């Protein structure tokens, strides 16, 4: 997938989280407390944790969409809240789990929204070309002229990923990028994300599949759903003990040379 038309329109900057606390809603339950970590350009982070652990909340806080209950998120030299929305749009792209498509729009038009919004220097024809190239990169080039409302879940998800990449912001925040994707397209995603970080970009993606996480990520952040977390390289985080604790099921790790495989021991339930 070296054909992916990666075009970063801002220089990548590191992301720092210091003593961040997150709540569900304004006064809801505590999701995470005292979360501190640094994400450097060129790294690919997998965000792991059980349902309701705060993965989406953390991603939207990092996107600047919601505020943290405590602590600070810095992007480069500035606190996230100090970034004007327009500049932030050139620095990070956010790919949510759910999309609204109330009115007809073709695939390429949907992708082109992100291009036009963040790269006004491109002509309309260039924006369309870039949009179509990204759709090809995610193997939905043939559906570029179709109404997005008629696409299947997995096809719509690939249009969404193409949209996030086409925005050209170095920091990609992906909320369950492999949701609805079949195996072939999950496999397709991995070299794309590697190429992204090779170009200097950063990936921060919430995922449920541990094998997927091991294969695409260089680092991992594991939320345990009780306010605790483990952060570090994938080798440090993706181990049986922290995973079994966080997911409350016995996870076993099979090592095969450099590779690791993860499976849940369904016969035994941990209490």
């Amino acid at each position: 997938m070296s054909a992916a038309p990666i075009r970063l329109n801002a220089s990548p900057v590191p992301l720092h989280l210091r003593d961040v606390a997150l709540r569900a809603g304004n006064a809801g339950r505590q999701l995470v407390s005292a979360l501190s970590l640094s994400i450097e350009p060129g790294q690919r982070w997998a965000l792991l944790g059980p349902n309701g652990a705060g993965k989406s909340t953390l991603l939207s806080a990092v996107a600047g969409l919601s505020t943290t209950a405590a602590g600070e998120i810095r992007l480069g030299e500035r606190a996230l809240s100090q970034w004007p929305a327009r500049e932030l749009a050139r620095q990070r792209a956010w790919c949510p789990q759910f999309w609204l498509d109330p009115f007809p729009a073709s695939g390429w038009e949907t992708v082109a929204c992100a291009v036009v919004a963040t790269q006004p220097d491109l002509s309309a024809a260039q924006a369309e070309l870039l949009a179509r190239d990204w759709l090809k990169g995610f193997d939905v080039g043939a559906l570029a002229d179709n109404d997005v409302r008629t696409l299947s879940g997995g096809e719509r998800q690939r249009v969404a990923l193409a949209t996030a990449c086409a925005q050209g912001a170095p920091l990609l925040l992906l909320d369950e990028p492999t949701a609805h994707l079949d195996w072939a397209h999950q496999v397709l995603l991995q070299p794309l994300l590697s190429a992204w970080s090779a170009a200097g970009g950063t990936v921060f993606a919430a995922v449920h599949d541990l094998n997927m996480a091991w294969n695409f990520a260089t680092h991992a952040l594991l939320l345990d759903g009780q306010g605790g977390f483990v952060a570090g390289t994938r080798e440090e985080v993706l181990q049986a003990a922290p995973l079994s604790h966080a997911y409350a099921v016995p996870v076993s790790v099979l090592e095969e040379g450099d590779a690791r495989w993860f499976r849940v021991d369904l016969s035994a339930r941990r209490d």
Partner: protein
Amino acid sequence: MILKPPPLAAALLLAGVCVPAALFIGLMAGSSGWGWPQGDILWLIRLPRVLSAFGTGAGLALAGALIQLVTRNPLADPYVLGVSSGASVGALLALMLLPAGLFLAPELGAVLGALAATSLAFLFTWRAMGKSGDGRIGNQPGTVVVLLVGVMIGAACGAAVSFMLAIANDQQLRSLVFWLLGDLNGASLWWPLWAAVGIALLLAWPRARELDWLTRGDAWAWTLGVPVAKRRRLAILAACIATGAAVATAGSIGFVGLVAPHIVRLVGLRHARALLPFSVVFGGVFLVLADTVARTLIAPAQLPVGVVSAAVGVPLFLFLLLRRSQAR
């Protein structure tokens, strides 16, 4: 389903033919038959009425397109803001409280009523949307608030109208009902209406693309750098101006605001940058023709134009609805 590129050139050409044609038909057709009207009839009656009809249809269609975008609801129309009900209350109050036959009394009452309802709707939505202080999304209420505020204002005005209908005498009742149905008879103040529609279009059109992005989700639009709350207020303000002026001129004419943007979308003009101006054109043409039918069908008597626009609009809308559910 494959979407073809918007047929902009063809639409421009069609608009260039349809607008003069509709105006010509509107001017030529009269209660006494077909033909070029004499001086005073042309200048004092036919022309102001045709221009008012065009402006009313244009304003309602523009407002409809804007409200559909802002609420992400293809079935919304300008009246969800409660503006038309406000105007009705104003007009009915003027009809009932002021001496009969007072010059322009119901019209001015409608203007005031529309303004009051507009300000109320605007104030409430503005306040509800402005809460997240630094302009970020947070837990912003968004589309639901716009709809709820409109429904509440509409409900209050509906109760007021029912009350007035209950206590009105026979003669008042006749003019009340006529006003409620929507009617262009005697509508002559066309230029303030055209000015209002022009201002509304100028306000909204430069931000049309951002309104398109907003339909795909407030949070996502914000991550693209769109100041979500500001744009939403702008669109609602423009819709209030256009609706208020249209209702003050002609009463509550239904279905133009709902159907006109859909027809424009059906033709393939689906982006707000094309949707807004072509809704203006199509809404204007539609109402000029509907009004022409209304005043010639059973001449010398006149039908309220609301009857004609509903007679065309309801079947058309049901057809669209059917197509929509089949496309799923």
